[in-house]
């Protein structure tokens, strides 16, 4: 799970720094892995606490949750539907909650509200950041090379910050269920989760990074920088709230925010509809899968 999360999601935070050639892939991946681990270990607790409180579960059920979430992500990818790791994990946890007849509805409401709030938060953050940074940039009046340098440094710095926020926010998706099952301490969970996400970044993120990164940099470079920063801030904000969110949704929200600020359409209706459908399908498929696996393999 952690490996897949790292391989797919690192592109959202560090991709543009690579495709802008500010950093080569190797150093970028190493930097991202390091900051993911630091973020997971320093601030990963709150997300783990939230997911752990959704329901009770045994170790057997925790393993089935992880497997179901991983299969869900694979299936949704094959069906070319957008998939959020957070939604797959929460959906699988809810499946176990239904089985155990115990779901903390208050926590669940908080999680769903944050999912809805992610693209909105990304959009608002991008609009505010664009105004502030544009005002500073234009006041400084950089020449061509200075402007280029500022943006490239910014992309690398935003990438590092985004990786930190990614680790802090998403480590819960990887190991929270094992904390709940009583087989991992929070510290061990953040370390193992952070390491597995980092490994995914180092070993398998290059292709996705160049695809996603180049798409973002096709926005003018300044806008790409604002999108990255807004994404990082959004992810980090929800880390403080204690809810793991989708980095892709945060990015899409930020791109939408840039478009709203400039009065141009940057995100297609199709993309927005696909996010909405993901909110419904992903948890449902993951929940159904875990129930099917329990039926197949038994409850212990």
């Amino acid at each position: 799970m952690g490996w897949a999360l790292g391989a797919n999601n690192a592109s959202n935070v560090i991709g543009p720094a690579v495709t802008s050639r500010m950093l080569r892939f190797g150093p970028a991946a190493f930097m991202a892995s390091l900051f993911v681990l630091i973020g997971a270990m320093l601030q990963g607790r709150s997300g783990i606490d939230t997911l752990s409180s959704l329901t009770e579960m045994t170790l057997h059920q925790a393993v089935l949750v992880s497997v179901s979430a991983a299969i869900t992500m694979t299936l949704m990818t094959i069906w070319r539907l957008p998939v959020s790791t957070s939604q797959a994990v929460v959906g699988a946890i809810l499946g176990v909650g239904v089985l155990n007849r115990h779901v903390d509805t208050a926590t669940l409401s908080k999680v769903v509200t944050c999912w809805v709030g992610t693209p909105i938060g990304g959009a608002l953050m991008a609009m505010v950041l664009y105004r502030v940074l544009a005002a500073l940039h234009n006041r400084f009046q950089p020449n061509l090379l200075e402007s280029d340098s500022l943006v490239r440094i910014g992309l690398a710095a935003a990438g590092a910050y985004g990786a930190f926020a990614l680790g802090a926010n998403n480590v819960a998706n990887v190991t929270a269920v094992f904390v709940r099952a009583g087989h991992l301490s929070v510290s061990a969970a953040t370390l193992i989760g952070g390491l597995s996400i980092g490994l995914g970044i180092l070993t398998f993120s290059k292709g996705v990074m160049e695809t996603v990164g180049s798409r973002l940099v096709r926005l003018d470079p300044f806008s790409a920088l604002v999108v990255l920063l807004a994404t990082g801030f959004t992810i980090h904000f929800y880390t403080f709230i204690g809810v793991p969110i989708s980095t892709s949704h945060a990015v899409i929200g930020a791109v939408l925010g840039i478009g709203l600020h400039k009065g141009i359409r940057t995100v297609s209706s199709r993309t927005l509809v696909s996010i909405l459908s993901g909110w419904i399908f992903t948890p449902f498929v993951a929940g159904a899968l875990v129930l099917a696996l329990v039926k197949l393999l038994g409850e212990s």
Partner: protein
Amino acid sequence: MFRIFFRKQHQVYSLVEKYLEALQKTQEYFSLAMEVCLADDRARSDFGFLTDETHRFESQADDVREEIKTLMYSKVLLPESREDIMRLLDGMDKIPRDMEIILNMIKTQKISIPDFLAQEIRDLIKASLEAVDLMRVQVQDLFRRKGRIKELVAVIDRKESQCDRIERSLVNAIFDSGLDGFLKLQLKELVIFLGDISDHVDVMSKQINIINLKRHV
């Protein structure tokens, strides 16, 4: 301290400066060659040498342009910045090329410029080269933090209009004269090529302004 991290970017700037120097030298030798051409026949012996020197500096400018392109291919800047600089260099390159073409035309076709056209041709060359000087200032300002780019667009535009007027006047004068038909066509082509210099400068000036505006977010 930042030079350590942005060594290649500083290299780009140094090479652009080197290109502008080569362009300036091309201008200078072109101007001298045209003056020799418009003067007495005794001075024509220098014409070959000055044409060769113009070609030498035009080639040098070409070499520097290729060096910048090679550096760009190592992806030293953001894609957008790379595209802007490449387009700028390709556009500017038309100017020294036009100068070389004009001198080769005079040399190979053995064009003799009649006295009644000489002064206006001098005026056309002077205005064109002044426009090129202003364009070089714009390019330098693009890489420094000076705000003259926009105001120079209007000045270059006026120079280009002046050159257009002189060009039209020259073409009229050529066809109103009693010169041989073939010579008229040769001279007309020469005047059009001379007029192209300021046209290219005007296009480049506006392009430089757009590149500068893109950096204002």
